[in-house]
């Protein structure tokens, strides 16, 4: 397939399990927030973040969870910072370890100037050598770093001098800066002597350095991580916090409890059912933002039941997605439209969500030959009733509820969906083998728009995420073409066309575009939390109540 994928994710089992039901106990020993008394930012204090999973490895090239990746990014920063301004254009970048960058006139070379004040926590300056070494780690096949495939478009990385490093590309394309910036910068002077082949046998907690706002102070596995202010950080007066602490709590309901009691200040991924409790809590703020995910029903396009485009359209029309959004998701999200999120620059603004129209659904089904001939309330064709199994991963309350709602709504047009909840690994394995009729899941969309992994009809045997077996030769051709266009302006019309075709074909029913809910204690000030990372501007955070 040759196309790259980035940050595509089956949003898995984490955003789930809303346990506690009743009203929370009034928090003891909390004083009201004297909003008026709060003046400007001040330095000092500690923020405690609750996380479900511990940092699994202290080498950023070996971590396997986003939680760990986000935390390690505070020690091993990137050259630039990707902004979340992707609504009207691909994301822009602000300087970080690099203070500036410049393309050659033919756009085949990108040269970064490193920030003079950037040093590792042992005092050694951050140099071009670090950047070259980090790039070697990105592409090392023994490390198998996620994102390595994107680096194939980069031909070489060379250090011109200590502070200047040049990326050379095979060809020009819209995401050259994004790819060069994709990946942490790690210390060559400390790690270069350790061959990549042995990295998995190394205790990386003994080799931690930092070029970011914080330094690693301590780690008790599965318990807590403490970072302290990096006195050598290039940005003077920052970070404001003395410390940031992560408490590992594998139980989500316990995490929510501790957020409410004030034991932790920040928690990612509040289940929608808990949102009101958090919002009404006097010391908590509910932060809501698009998490670049969309939920969908995948219809197995190879299955005789769903092979007909009219049938798939009818299924979408029969499902009342507004109700779904209002009940299951408590209103957090927007209606799904197509394969590109409506908040993304690449979205085709001529497309609109399909309406809820059971009458039209019945008409389309009849056109496709589905009628209730035996009077049992279920449509049939050639003696076969319209009945199928609707899968999702067990334990994800939101998705289980969605399945039940879909069952009820499809029953009204004479279709029998039988929800079945199976373990996540078992589900993925069935999807990969195409052994399913329909399933409910979600994708997270990358800021680098690439529709091929999900929508291209990959040749058999190729690894793909096109589980539903969608195959439209026209879409295949357009996907191949868009990969060869070197500018966004040239890509956009083709992307629009692809979206229109996919929405017409309805290989999925696009249910909703998701939002993430985070809970933050109001003692934490100045925090900007977004879908890039919870620690987006962590060096600006401050707390108002700390006695020190």
């Amino acid at each position, binding site marked *: *397939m040759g196309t790259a*994928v*980035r*940050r*595509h*994710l089956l949003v*898995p*089992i*984490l955003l789930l399990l809303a346990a506690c039901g009743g009203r929370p*106990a009034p928090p*003891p020993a909390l004083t009201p927030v004297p909003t008026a008394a709060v003046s400007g930012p001040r330095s000092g204090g500690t923020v*405690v973040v609750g996380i479900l999973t511990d940092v*699994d*490895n202290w*080498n950023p090239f070996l971590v*396997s*969870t*986003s939680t760990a*990746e986000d935390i390690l990014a505070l020690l091993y920063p990137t050259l630039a910072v990707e902004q979340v301004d992707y609504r009207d254009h691909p994301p822009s970048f602000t300087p970080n370890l690099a203070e500036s960058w410049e393309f050659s006139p033919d756009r085949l070379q990108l040269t970064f100037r490193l920030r003079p004040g950037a040093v590792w926590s042992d005092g050694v300056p951050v140099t071009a050598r670090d950047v070259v070494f980090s790039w070697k780690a990105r592409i090392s*096949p023994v490390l*198998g*770093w*996620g*994102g*390595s*495939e994107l680096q194939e478009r980069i031909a070489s990385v060379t250090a011109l001098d200590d502070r200047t490093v040049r990326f050379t590309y095979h060809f020009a394309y819209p995401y050259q800066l994004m790819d060069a910036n994709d990946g942490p910068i790690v210390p060559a002077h400390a790690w270069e002597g350790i061959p990549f082949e042995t*990295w*998995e*046998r190394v*205790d990386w907690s003994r080799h931690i350095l930092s070029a970011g706002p914080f330094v690693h102070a*301590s780690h*008790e*596995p*599965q*318990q*807590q991580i403490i970072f302290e202010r990096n006195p050598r950080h290039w940005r003077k007066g920052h970070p404001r916090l003395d410390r940031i*602490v992560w*408490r*590992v*709590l*594998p*139980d989500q309901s*316990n995490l929510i*409890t*501790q957020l409410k*009691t004030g034991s932790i200040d920040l928690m990612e991924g509040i289940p929608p059912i808990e949102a009101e409790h958090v919002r009404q809590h006097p010391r908590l703020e509910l932060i809501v933002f698009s998490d670049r995910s969309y939920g969908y029903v995948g219809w197995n396009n190879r299955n005789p039941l769903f092979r007909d485009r009219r049938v798939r359209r009818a299924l979408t029309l029969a499902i009342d997605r507004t109700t779904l959004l209002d009940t299951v998701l408590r209103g957090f999200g927007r209606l799904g439209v197509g394969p590109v999120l409506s908040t993304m620059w690449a979205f085709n603004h001529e497309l609109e969500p399909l309406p809820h129209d059971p009458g039209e659904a019945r008409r389309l089904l009849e056109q496709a030959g589905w009628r209730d001939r035996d009077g049992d309330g279920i449509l049939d064709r050639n003696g076969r009733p319209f009945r199928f199994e609707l899968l999702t991963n067990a334990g994800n309350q939101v998705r289980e509820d969605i399945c039940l709602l879909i069952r009820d709504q499809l029953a009204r047009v004479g279709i029998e969906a039988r929800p079945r909840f199976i373990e*996540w*690994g*078992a589900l*993925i*394995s*069935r999807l*990969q083998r195409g052994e399913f009729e329909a399933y409910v899941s979600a994708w*997270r969309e*990358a800021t680098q728009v690439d529709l091929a*992994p999900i929508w291209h009809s990959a040749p058999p045997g*190729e*690894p*793909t*995420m096109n589980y539903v077996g969608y195959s439209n030769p026209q879409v295949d051709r357009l996907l191949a073409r868009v990969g060869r266009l070197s500018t966004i302006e040239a890509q956009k019309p083709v992307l629009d066309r692809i979206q229109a075709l996919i929405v017409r074909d309805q290989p999925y029913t696009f249910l909703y575009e998701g939002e993430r809910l985070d809970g933050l204690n109001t003692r934490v000030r100045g925090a900007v939390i977004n879908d890039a990372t919870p620690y987006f501007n962590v060096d600006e955070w401050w707390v108002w109540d700390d006695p020190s």
Partner: protein
Amino acid sequence: MPPARPAGLRGEPVLRFALRRLLTAIPVLWLVVTLTFVVVHAVPGSTVDLLDNPRLGPHEREVMRQHFGLDLPLHVQYVRWLGGIARGDLGVSFLYRQPVRTVVVRALPPTLLLTGSALLLDLLLGIGLAVLAVARHRSWFDRVTTVLSLGLYGMPAFWLAGLAILVFSLKLGWLPASHLHSLDAASLPPAARLADLLRHLVLPAGILGLAGAASTARYLRASLLDVRDSRFLLAARARGIPPWRILWIHALRPALLPLVTILGLSLPFLVSGSLVIEVIFAWPGMGRVMWTAAWARDIPVILAVTLLGAVAVIVGNLLADILYAIVDPRARSW
């Protein structure tokens, strides 16, 4: 029910006996790990697909599959893994990308602390309650403890844990609801640090121990009632030995014999920890390691923990046999 006497213990030096038993255990261990190997590979889904890492696309996951050797035929993977075990190498965790040994060794002490304290509480409370219940046989105390212990025995640990957190942490604020230490425990003097650890231990160990004590008490009560009517106790009573002494010494000793077996058999519990309790209380032990590994299909870790559990079962059985022979002279001849 006392166990059958260890076959072959009669007339054999205890050390030789132990050695012989351990050697015959090797095929059993091999069978256990082989079966586990087959089962974990038969379970649908693989680590590579389950990794919650948005950076991994299908091609990158394929590279990873090859890197972990998951693309090799099963028998090749098996021989590789067994060869590693024979050399004492448990492999590298797919999830942590670190040696399995590191992952397991780091989880063992917290689990031993938790399960050891739970077992201690289990025995002390279980024995105490049983003896008191028998001393006041058919009294209200007996009835209340019977109902309570049956109730406790039947309660799911996760429910009991939730209730305990609600009452003791949230409402009363007496005890911490999770973790080994408080946030700033590292800066405390040693004595205060120990006290902090113990405070964190109370809820998880208490719940584990209480559930165990309930069954121990039921078990021992039945055993004591059996012994109570035996002739040697009648003789003791006839000699005018005070009732408390008869109960606590003369009756308890024979009644405790089955407990020795239970003790030996609890070794696997000691090393493998409690999955539910460790997850709820964020206790960094073996149960958590196994839980995470099972979700993530981290096969090297699953196999290593199973191996450890199997070894513990075998050693525990052996210990039970030997202990039994030590406390019951009828069962030994060395």
